[in-house]
């Protein structure tokens, strides 16, 4: 059977020690049996490794930061679309999702399809709204509170026991043992991600994660649970292993069925010594470790593209337990003209069109 031609655009090419999911998502779809693909990379920084990695992107364009607003992004995407004719776009950062969701109708008119959660799904699973989410869908969640000032920090001892977690609205999480440490993390997080900063009860146990895909009707297309075996100082998985845990799968299916989740998601869970599962975060996108799921038998990024194209997708029934991933870092040699072209013109061609200076 011949493969379907597809032009895919993806963000999250920052394959660093705090990796975005772009590179593993592209790699997964490149291995697809269904699609023959050309990839347009969308980058925020000129040194995102996925721009230069062989076999990942065919062409890359710089795009404006989400803080520049919807119009700036759409204007840029209209230009890119006039040259590229992108079929499907997969945004891979939490911080940009809102902008892409707001733009999805206009993108559709341009011929660019996405498969994203709805704005209300995005909103209700937000860290600040997690307690309400837990109550509404009957799942265990840690006690959480938004803080907006130093005064709020002083009052925390009336409601929380130390240690507690201090989290940014999009990224970053730190454990704090006293008020002084909360202040320190509050300053760091608010400077980077803005307010509110979220305080969360610290649940003791083992952190486990699930990557899943919902089709928007309440059906779970696929899900693979994993435990991080090697964690970097940024808390990112550098190694992990797939688990056989029916309770984690049941919880995932429960959440997707109740919320009618549409798109990729990552559940961050804590399993206590009494085998309770607490939902500590729901990330509204495919995580950077998704290639483990592909290795275990579920090509979730490929299934997401099929859903975006309105193709029929049969739910995955199984995955391999005990499959591991181990990350590595690798130095690439990059010729200056590629970097120069991206820095000055905001777009870069495939490597073969360059000559070394």
């Amino acid at each position: 059977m011949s493969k379907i031609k597809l032009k895919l655009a993806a963000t999250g090419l920052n394959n660093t020690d705090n990796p975005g999911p772009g590179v593993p998502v592209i790699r997964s779809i490149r291995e697809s049996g269904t699609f023959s693909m050309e990839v347009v990379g969308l980058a925020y920084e000129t040194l995102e490794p996925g721009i230069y990695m062989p076999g990942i992107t065919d062409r890359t364009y710089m795009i404006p930061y989400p803080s520049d607003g919807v119009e700036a992004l759409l204007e840029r995407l209209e230009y890119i679309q006039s040259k590229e004719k992108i079929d499907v776009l997969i945004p891979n950062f939490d911080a940009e999702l809102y902008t892409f969701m707001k733009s999805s109708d206009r993108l559709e008119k341009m011929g660019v399809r996405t498969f994203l959660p709805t704005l209300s799904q995005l909103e209700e699973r937000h860290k600040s709204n997690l307690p309400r989410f837990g109550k509404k869908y009957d799942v265990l969640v840690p006690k959480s509170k938004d803080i907006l000032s130093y005064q709020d920090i002083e009052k925390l001892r009336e409601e929380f026991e130390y240690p507690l977690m201090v989290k940014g609205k999009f990224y970053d999480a730190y454990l704090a043992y006293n008020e002084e440490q909360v202040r320190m993390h509050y300053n760091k997080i608010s400077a980077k991600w803005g307010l509110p900063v979220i305080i969360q009860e610290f649940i003791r146990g083992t952190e486990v994660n699930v990557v899943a895909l919902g089709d928007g009707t309440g059906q779970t297309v696929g899900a693979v649970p994993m435990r991080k075996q090697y964690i970097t100082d940024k808390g990112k998985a550098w190694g992990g292993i797939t688990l056989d845990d029916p309770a984690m799968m049941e919880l995932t299916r429960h959440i997707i069925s109740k919320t009618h989740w549409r798109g990729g998601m990552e559940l961050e869970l804590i399993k206590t010594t009494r085998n309770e599962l607490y939902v500590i975060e729901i990330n509204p996108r495919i995580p950077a470790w998704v290639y483990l799921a592909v290795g275990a038998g579920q090509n979730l990024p490929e299934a997401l593209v099929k859903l975006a194209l309105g193709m029929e997708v049969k739910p995955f029934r199984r995955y391999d337990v005990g499959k591991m991933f181990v990350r590595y870092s690798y130095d690439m040699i990059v010729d200056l003209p590629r970097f120069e072209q991206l820095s000055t013109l905001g777009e870069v061609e495939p490597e073969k069109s360059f000559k070394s200076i």
Partner: protein
Amino acid sequence: MSLRKNIAVSDSGFVFDPSSGESYSLNPIGTEIVKLLQQGRSNEDIIRDLTGKYDVDDATLERYYYDFIGMLKQFNLLENGE
């Protein structure tokens, strides 16, 4: 006394718990005991087997055996309630 059903034990003594993702390495005697537990054999039965097979007195074997079983319990490798 039995090992949890989904625990995998290789002949080399590598034990994998697919629920937690943890793995352990056993020496040959540990591997032998775990394989007997996997067959659902009782503690008394296993102790009798081992005392007949190795040059060790009953009291010493029993002490080390239950110490090892305690470790398996601690790592949550035995069926619930055992």
